[in-house]
């Protein structure tokens, strides 16, 4: 874990309100694992005391990228960053995605910035499987060519049918599973997206006995385990539950560990 002043190399608008911020952040790049995040102090936001967490999208050379959308005060302020500006980062933070268990077939499921959050993993996994990307409408589907270039099959669903199949991404997942032979093949799923999507993946994992790693999005304070803002309910062996900190013990959890209930409802 480092604190680093990163230089903004470029800020690019991509589709659907998303931006890609490219930073020179050698310390972050040197240590980042797939699924980890950086905690950003957004400049010129004097009234706001908290940092904002962003998954690492790409990390190459000394360059780090994050892909984000201007949804609130912090992220909208970030859209004004320009080449030459400086950004104070803490990271890499959190427990990312574990490596694929040998002999398993990897399945990725993503929505929103989750597509970016899975990219490093997709690049690193030794087996290239199938990726399911879902969104409301075509511009919400990001990074498809990049995943295909890595050798992944990408299946897309949009709720309005403007790209790929019409409907939820989990329908694609169900169809794929239904036609897949032999059933006995072990699947290891990795998911990042809205809470509803994660919960849907968790249900399938339970039903089909997959291992499923989900990256949750919880409001964060410190990002390092000190403030206990970002907790979510997890099962304990005896049938009880305990809070775990998604910033340090997560953001990636095995889906069966999570207590799925309204208390862990989506934050976005």
């Amino acid at each position, binding site marked *: *874990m*480092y*604190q680093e002043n990163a230089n903004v190399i470029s800020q690019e608008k991509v589709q659907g309100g998303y931006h890609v911020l490219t930073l020179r952040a050698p310390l972050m790049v040197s240590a980042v694992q797939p699924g980890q995040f950086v905690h950003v*102090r957004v400049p010129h936001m*004097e*009234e*706001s*005391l*908290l*940092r904002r967490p962003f998954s690492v999208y790409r990390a190459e050379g000394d360059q780090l990228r994050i892909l984000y959308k201007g949804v609130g005060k912090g992220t909208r302020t970030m859209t004004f960053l320009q080449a030459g500006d400086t950004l*104070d980062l*803490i990271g890499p933070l959190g427990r990312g995605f574990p490596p694929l268990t040998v002999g398993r077939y990897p399945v990725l499921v993503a929505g929103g910035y989750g597509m970016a959050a899975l990219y490093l993993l997709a690049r690193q996994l030794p087996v290239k499987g199938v990726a399911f990307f879902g969104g409301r409408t075509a511009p919400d589907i990001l990074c498809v060519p990049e995943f295909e270039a890595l050798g992944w099959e990408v299946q897309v669903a949009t709720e309005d049918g403007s790209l790929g199949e019409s409907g939820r991404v989990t329908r694609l997942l169900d169809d794929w599973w239904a036609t897949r032979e032999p059933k006995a093949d072990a699947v290891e799923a990795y998911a990042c997206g809205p809470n509803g999507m994660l919960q849907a993946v968790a249900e399938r994992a339970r039903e089909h006995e997959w291992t499923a790693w989900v990256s949750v999005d*919880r*409001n964060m*304070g*410190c990002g*390092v*385990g*000190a*403030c*206990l*803002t970002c*907790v*979510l309910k997890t099962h304990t062996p005896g049938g009880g539950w*305990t*809070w775990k900190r998604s910033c*340090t013990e997560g953001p990636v959890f095995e889906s069966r560990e999570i207590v799925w209930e309204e*208390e*862990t409802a989506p*934050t976005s």
Partner: protein
Amino acid sequence: MVDLSVTIGSLKLKTPVLVASGTFGYGPEYADLVDLNQLGAMVVKGIALEPTKGNPTPRTFETASGLLNAIGLPNPGVEGFIEQYLPFLRRYTVPVIVNIWGRSVEEYVAVARRLDAADGVHALEVNVSCPNIKEGSALFGTDLEAFKRVVAGVRAATKLPVIPKLAPNVSDVGAFARAAAETGADGISLINSLPAMAVNVETRRPELANVSGGLTGAAIHPFAVKLVWDAARAVDIPVIGIGGIASAREALEFIIVGASAVAVGTASFTHPPTALEVTAGIADYLERHQLPSVAALRGTLKTN
């Protein structure tokens, strides 16, 4: 070299800048980013007799220059703390102040007694002022008699320096400061977070699951300075000033109105090395003003 040391009862601090309870975890959380040994003291998150889960989420919410929290004092219990965290902290030279709380005088006393016997604890901060606990212990912070009972109980249970942490939502903070001194406290700290709340107007629900919480950060700083000034004029024991410190300036304000030491809270979330930068800033200020020690600056407010 200016003298930054501070003495609170038998506790000797090399610098006057602490980190505030609940904002720096138990030690390991920030250890990668901040050299703990350079802190005046490490004040750990509130410890109770039994493990406690704390409040449902959301637990924090950003407000104008402030942070609202209702964490609900989750903690591993005094035994859990001693097992899980004290061994780590003993590897450092930084003095460890354990913030304690309870739901009854007996619980406070039991925690104090247990920590008195533990190796590596240097003082106890007695949290009587956390607004997040529903079980009634908030009363210890605003009812003078209940307050005295807690402080007296803890005092009798330990030889460690005892530092009651005062509640900010009282009309006469001086009375609580005096009560602490009279009951044998070695110092006092203030302020704890200020009872507050926020509402999501679209859902008409509180922004915190606990409905209300405590306000901290820059927003409350001028209020904290006033209370520290009032408290410091009321007693001779050392006062630790807390509330909205983000740079040396705010820390110096506390010292000038009478604080012997200060603690950095919410600002560590924004910028983890804040406490160390504040320390450097105080040293620099003392040199610029040709003051030999931080003690020489204490209580030097000119009011005419």
